[in-house]
């Protein structure tokens, strides 16, 4: 019980800190924090699939990019408000994930990984091919609509307060979802899919549902990214971008909601600090960290800590 109380307290303190952050951080860090939060969502989309449902998707970048381009293209055509853009990003993320997922979940094992990777290549190529719409290799600059009709996204604080509620809502949603019988059933698929089927669980449908929800979360992250950076580019669909989400999740600890938060936060901060002293050092360092994590802490930072405290 006291452990729970501490968790509650830490969670409340964390939320309070996030809400107040712009009052004590300068605008550079506020913008940076907004990016971290939306990338945590991107990582959670992978975490829901891999950490909780046991599905290794190499293609979450696809739904991220679909969400981002939904925002960009809607702005170009009709200039709707943020209240419409974000749900649209979620929706297109879910629809595109449903399209891929309905085929992919039927394929077991490593075929699944490759099938989720194919759309990454197709979408990047589609973006390059349709450069009139997408900006091709140069990407597309957009002018986000004003939040509530008056606050510009070019102000980092506005961006931040647009991202924060989405971040918190998604985190609470995931917490709730994973406690429902549906969320518990995801775990059964992860642990032993064949057994779950014999117990009466429609595992194909469960995997599909997880895939679509994850697509919606990635779409939301992409939509937020488009608004915050005012920029979209087809190459964000590349599997190497999806791999970022995988790394953030696994370094932090897959199968925990805190893992992607820690992993994304730590690694993006490391990138920011390194970029000042050694421009190309981050990927190199990340590569080595990754090898180290895999060999010495396969459950990630949060997993390792939890194990230490539990044991």
């Amino acid at each position: 019980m006291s452990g729970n109380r501490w968790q509650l307290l830490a969670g409340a303190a964390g939320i309070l800190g996030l809400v107040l952050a712009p009052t004590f951080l300068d605008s550079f860090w506020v913008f940076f924090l907004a990016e971290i939060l939306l990338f945590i969502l991107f990582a959670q989309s992978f975490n829901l699939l891999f950490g909780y449902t046991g599905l290794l998707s190499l293609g979450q970048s696809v739904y991220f990019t679909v969400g981002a381009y939904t925002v960009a293209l809607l702005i170009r055509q009709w200039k709707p408000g943020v209240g419409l853009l974000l749900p649209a990003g979620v929706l297109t993320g879910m629809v595109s994930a449903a399209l891929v997922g309905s085929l992919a979940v039927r394929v077991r094992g490593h075929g699944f990984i490759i099938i989720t990777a194919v759309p990454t290549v197709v979408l990047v190529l589609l973006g390059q091919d349709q450069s009139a719409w997408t900006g091709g290799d140069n990407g597309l600059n957009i002018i986000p609509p004003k939040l509530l009709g008056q606050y510009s996204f070019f102000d980092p604080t506005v961006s931040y307060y647009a991202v924060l509620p989405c971040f918190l809502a998604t985190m609470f949603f995931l917490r709730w979802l994973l406690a429902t019988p549906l969320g518990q059933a995801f775990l059964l698929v992860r642990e032993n899919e064949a057994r779950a089927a014999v117990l009466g669980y429609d595992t194909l449908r469960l995997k599909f549902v997880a895939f679509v929800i994850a697509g919606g979360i990635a779409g939301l992250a992409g939509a937020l990214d488009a608004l915050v950076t005012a920029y979209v580019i087809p190459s964000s669909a590349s599997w190497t971008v999806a791999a970022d989400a995988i790394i953030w999740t696994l370094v932090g600890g897959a199968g925990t909601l805190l893992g992607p938060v820690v992993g994304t936060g730590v690694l993006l901060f490391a990138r920011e600090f390194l970029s000042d002293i050694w421009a190309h050092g981050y990927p190199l360092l990340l590569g080595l960290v990754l090898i180290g994590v895999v060999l010495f802490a396969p459950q990630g930072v949060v997993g390792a800590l939890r194990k230490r405290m539990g044991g």
Partner: protein
Amino acid sequence: MLLTTRNLTKHFGGVAAIQGLDFQVDALETRAVIGPNGAGKTTLLRLIMGELTPTRGEIFLNGQPIHHLPSHRIARLGIAKAFQIPQIFPSLTVAQNVQAGVGHGLASLWLNGGRQAQIRERVAQVLDQIHLADKADLPASELAHGEQKRLEIGLALAQSPQLLLLDEPTAGLSHAETDEIMQLIRSLQGKTTLVMVEHDMRVVMSLADTISVLHFGQLLAQGTPQEIRANPKVQEIYLSQHG
């Protein structure tokens, strides 16, 4: 008849594991399926459970064809199976494992808030039945082999099946552990229809109402334990091998 198979046949590559099998199980009986290794016993259970699709032939539950259904649909019709090698959910707790058996099906997933108490009660009931109540909160991976076998049966029991398939429930267990499983099975007899594949003749002879002997995927003999014990064909191909 609760369960009927008609001309059931399963080929693996060119090899027939089950050949034109007509097999019937009465409601609430305890049936043992025996036979030498490779006789098709495990294949039969997998066919009934929908883990395999028959090459030919049909399977009926209460007269309703089920051989074309996927496993999860068959499970929802009231068939459950305990695997020979425990197929539990290793990082979930023992109680969560049992709960996995209680609440199945996406339809019931969202809206069982009101059923929480009911589910908890059922979980506790099953944990008592398999004598694992004191280990409810341990991760299943930390159980000993004998306990994992009991949990495996518990998973199937939790589904409250009308037909329970047991694939070698006592394989790899000590004498004492086997006795515990036998007690558990006895407590189910007369309440649930049981079909068990088993090698241990002590278990088979003392529990089964009827024994079916499979040989090369076909029914060689069927009868009460006494009849099977006295059957010269069975003695020749089976009992003699086991001494």
